[in-house]
């Protein structure tokens, strides 16, 4: 296979950005979700409302933040509110259309683990933990998951349930009373997995150009089903790649800038 002219991260980011409609309210995490949301805002969705859990509402950063609370996010926000308010008045109250999540592990029903690998009391790997993820998974009207697909991360059984997807499937999430619809799409470096309408089991629904079903199956730790209609996704538009690469170049330059502090007050 020839080199496609874009990286796996780039096509994941562009694909995620295409899922965002102009005017939607997005609860954004750092990393690829932040890149995808800002790419969408800088291209087809200028009125996208970005909320970061640090309390910045309607923020329009010109460079991507390293942390969830960089000053850039506050300086370019419509308003900055206390953190309890972000979770209670915005997320829990149902004001968020799209929540973005990643995790260390995902299962066939879109449940996520970002807490531990191994036993909780004696973990092999202690991961950062829930943060905002469990409430984003519950309350966002829909969830987009972005993560690289490997047999170690796409597992038949989670080591720990941090954030609810479709639970055991077959309507279990709706029965639990969770207000949000759950993960609408899992965007990976192979393509997109979507839940089956009746069982909510994640199925391979789309592949990037030049990637085959067998490769996606080999990267999945459960017997991955293929949707009745398997789509081939378009390659990133050159114009999108220009905007994304410019954004990342500005970000690298900003994060490399030395800090100076004046001690005379």
């Amino acid at each position: 296979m020839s080199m496609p002219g874009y990286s796996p991260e780039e096509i994941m980011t562009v694909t995620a950005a295409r899922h965002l409609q102009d005017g939607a309210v997005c609860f954004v995490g750092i990393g690829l979700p932040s890149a995808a949301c800002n790419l969408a805002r800088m291209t087809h969705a200028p009125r996208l409302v970005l909320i970061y859990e640090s309390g910045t509402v309607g923020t329009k950063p010109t460079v991507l933040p390293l942390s969830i609370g960089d000053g850039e996010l506050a300086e370019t926000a419509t308003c900055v509110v206390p953190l309890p308010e972000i979770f209670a008045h915005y997320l829990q109250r149902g004001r968020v259309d799209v929540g973005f999540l990643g995790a260390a592990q995902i299962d066939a029903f879109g449940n996520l683990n970002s807490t531990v690998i191994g036993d909780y009391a004696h973990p092999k790997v202690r991961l950062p933990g829930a943060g905002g993820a469990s409430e984003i998974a519950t309350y966002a009207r829909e969830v987009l998951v972005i993560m690289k697909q490997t047999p170690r991360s796409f597992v038949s059984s989670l080591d720990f349930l941090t954030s609810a997807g479709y639970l055991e499937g077959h309507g279990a999430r709706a029965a639990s009373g969770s207000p949000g619809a759950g993960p609408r799409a899992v965007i990976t470096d192979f393509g997109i997995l979507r839940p089956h309408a009746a069982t909510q089991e994640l199925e391979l629904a789309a592949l990037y150009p030049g990637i085959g079903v067998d490769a996606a199956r080999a990267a999945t730790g459960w017997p991955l089903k293929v949707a009745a209609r398997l789509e081939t996704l378009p390659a990133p538009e050159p114009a999108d790649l220009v905007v994304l690469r410019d954004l990342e170049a500005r970000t690298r330059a900003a994060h490399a800038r030395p800090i100076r502090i004046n001690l005379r007050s």
Partner: protein
Amino acid sequence: MPLLPLDEAIATHVRDGDSVALEGFTHLIPFAAGHEIIRLRRRNLHLIRMTPDLIYDQLIGMGCASRLTFSWGGNPGVGSLHRLRDAVERQWPQPLALSEFSHAELALAYQAGASGMSCGLMPHHAATDLARVPGAAVRTVPCPFTGRLLTAVPAINPDVTILHAQQIDAEGNVLIRGIVGAAREAAHAARRVLVTVEERVERLDAEMNALVLPSWLITCASVVPGGAYPSYAQGYYARDNRFYLAWDEIARDRQAFTAWMERHVLGMRDHAALLRALGVAA
């Protein structure tokens, strides 16, 4: 509300075995105060913070803490807190008991503590494994009006909350501006409140609805320019993202970590000396 040198403020008000919340969500993290706790070699602390960040990585790795209450324990945008992981995975330098929440739950616990409530309430939906771990603190209760299940999160009232802020005025009132996280709630919940500030001014540069902590809520304050570095103070200096990236390598190895702390924290008289040694202040 006395204005004290930082070493005196910490020596007087932070004791072995205290529950201590150094708050500030990514922004205004009181690093200088945390370093003073390390210099005073406080032990057996119960550390409370939504995002432990590098300051708790340092306190944990230096053996100051026996318990951690938290909701997200990573180096934001970089990866692991290696000292936190070493304490949990391999009990180095000592075991660390965890009380773990989600952000929404921990914010609610501070709010309850700040309001004189025994617990805070939020809707209950699908239970996650966090509610099922040994020692999990949350409970479910029925709403007395609708019968629907609610999650009850026990209030948190730290012995001491420590914040960094932009300004203190002549009366001792403190202004916090920018990303505030749960700083206000953590202050109101605490038994004692210690504040470090960038500068002392005659009058606060505060709008009518600004976040101001009145002087009589504050136990004592210290003027510490750069006191949030490598976190930041909106309007004064930016977050040193290069330092957060570099910390990953420093903290990965026990010896490299210990050497760095001995040289840059134990070996420095105060925060100004550290900032000069790192070349961020002249």
